[in-house]
């Protein structure tokens, strides 16, 4: 990647790590210190294309290519006037033509093609469509207003819910106190066994608690904007494809063809004393899973297999 450099003072990012390149509507870059120097008075002309510029329009360059910055500027400006919506057109074709026209204008301005005519066109458009432009501008304002209103309503609802919760809690507290008092009254006035009364009261309290539990907490299922959450997000994903599972694997011991006399199995080798004739395993080998019977069986296997070869 080539080094970013200020075209005027030739300072590079390497020489001045805090170098900040700025860009204005013409799309030519300047470093911060050059901007400070040249635009002391607040306005001046671009050192490259002599276009008159205002200092306040300088921005930090976000993209490597200053042309992109320039295009963003131009697009912002054009879209301020060309603010028609799809609803403003009778057919889709017309709307598409309109969008293409915008692109044409932006491209022309970016690349300095036919500037005079293009600017004239914009002026003409502004004149012709003043009303529509104004209307759309206010419409955008109205939309914003609506959004705010919605937020307000949401806030109110929240407040209401909070108060409700508080009330329920208080109610519960009162209920408990009342129950306790009733119990004490009963104990004082009744002639029955005290423990019986206590247990009866406990039972009742249990019952009411269970009832409270069974009332399902109403969950909120949508955002204030009316978008449902929960299920809505789930629908965004494809369901995990279900794997077709075959029958379970059934292990069958492999049938080995030895082409020789039968080979003693591992327990046989240990039982008949074959292992005595080979070196025992060391503790370290044992820890690694090696048993001398393995080596013994392998030697025997290799000795006996293939003995029938040729017949």
């Amino acid at each position, binding site marked *: 990647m080539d080094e970013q450099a200020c075209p005027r003072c030739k300072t590079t990012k390497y020489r001045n790590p805090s170098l900040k390149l700025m860009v204005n509507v013409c799309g030519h870059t300047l470093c911060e210190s050059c901007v400070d120097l040249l635009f002391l008075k607040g306005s001046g002309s671009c050192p490259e294309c002599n276009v008159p510029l205002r200092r306040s329009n300088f921005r930090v360059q976000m993209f490597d290519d200053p042309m992109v910055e320039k295009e963003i500027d131009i697009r912002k400006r054009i879209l301020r006037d060309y603010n028609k919506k799809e609803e403003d057109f009778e057919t889709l074709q017309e709307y598409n033509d309109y969008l293409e026209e915008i692109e044409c204008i932006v491209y022309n301005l970016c690349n300095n093609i036919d500037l005079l005519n293009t600017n004239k066109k914009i002026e003409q458009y502004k004149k012709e469509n003043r009303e529509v432009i104004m209307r759309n501008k206010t419409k955008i304002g109205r939309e914003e207003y609506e959004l705010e209103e919605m937020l307000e309503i949401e806030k109110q609802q929240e407040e209401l819910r909070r108060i409700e919760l508080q009330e329920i809690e208080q109610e519960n507290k009162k209920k408990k106190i009342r129950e306790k008092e009733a119990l004490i009254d009963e104990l004082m006035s009744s002639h029955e066994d005290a423990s019986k009364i206590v247990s009866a009261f406990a039972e009742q309290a249990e019952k009411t608690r269970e009832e409270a539990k069974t009332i399902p907490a109403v969950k909120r299922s949508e955002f204030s904007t009316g978008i449902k959450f929960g299920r809505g997000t789930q629908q965004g994903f494809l369901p995990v494809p279900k794997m077709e599972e075959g029958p379970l694997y059934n292990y069958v011991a492999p049938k080995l063809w030895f*082409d*020789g006399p039968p080979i003693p199995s591992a327990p046989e080798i240990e039982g008949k004393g074959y292992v005595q004739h080979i070196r025992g395993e060391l503790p370290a080998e044992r820890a690694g899973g090696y048993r001398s019977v393995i080596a013994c069986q392998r030697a*025997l296997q290799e*000795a006996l297999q293939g003995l029938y*070869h040729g017949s």
Partner: protein
Amino acid sequence: MYPTSSQRKYWTFSNEQEIQALRLKQNQDYIEKHGADMDPQTRLHFFLTPEEERLLLKQYELHLRDFCKRFDPPMPRCIIGTAFHYFKRFYLHNSPMDFHPKEILATCVYLSCKVEEFNVSIGQFVGNIKGDRLKAMDIILSNELLLMQQLNYYLTVHNPYRPIEGFLIDIKTRCSMANPERLRPGIDEFVDKTFLTDACLLYSPSQIALAAVLHAASKEQENLDSYVTESLFHSAQNKLPVLVEAVRKIRTMVRILDFPPKDRVKAIEKKLDKCRNQENNPDSQIYKQRMKKMMCEEDDIDLDSSYHLAATDSSIDGSLMNISQS
């Protein structure tokens, strides 16, 4: 598992005639290819006959054994066995006139070291070779892939060494023989000799091992016949004759083993120098040109394969392996 191995399927033959036929075929193929414009009489004088090839290869099998025995660090025996297998298998389908046995020999041992997990670097390996080591390294590394290809990548070899251990354990457990360990010298000597025969291309490793054990026992005036008939073939008496025949054949092969006369081998080597395929002779101009061409083609892809041209200096003498002087 020998019974289900590639060794049994592709590299164990049912009789000696099959092996003979293969050797005859590769000899004829080479002569057809390189002597198309000669009449039968000059062909006979110019090229090696199948018998001469046999003698030459036998001589080199002796070299192979000596080379392995003198190898430093000392190598486990299974490497020698595997190397012998590779050497024999290679020359079933290739003529020694096409690829010089001294080059294939070293390559076989090198590959065998790798397959049997005996870790020696190529530098350490060529340290065991007399003569120009750089050139030897070059030859071994460039032949290694060829060898594997000719072996059809069947690299696992079942050797008779572990079966021998198995038999000794079995004898100690099931026989009342006194001190079976004293059979070992006889067994080792016998097995070494079987590798100089074609036994390993004809019989299963356990049969060779049993033949070795029986041979060593008879040398020690012990009789293991009852062990074979009662313990081993107790449940399959009908299979016994085949085994007895196999053991007899193996022992005969070892008994009639003879060493090729030195003067004949020398004459054959001289003949070989003329009729060998110059394209595979690292000392020839053709070979060097071929390598250079290959290098140029490879250059774009691979710049560091420098060893191909490491030793193409014409002043180097041909005594690469220098084994015959031992």
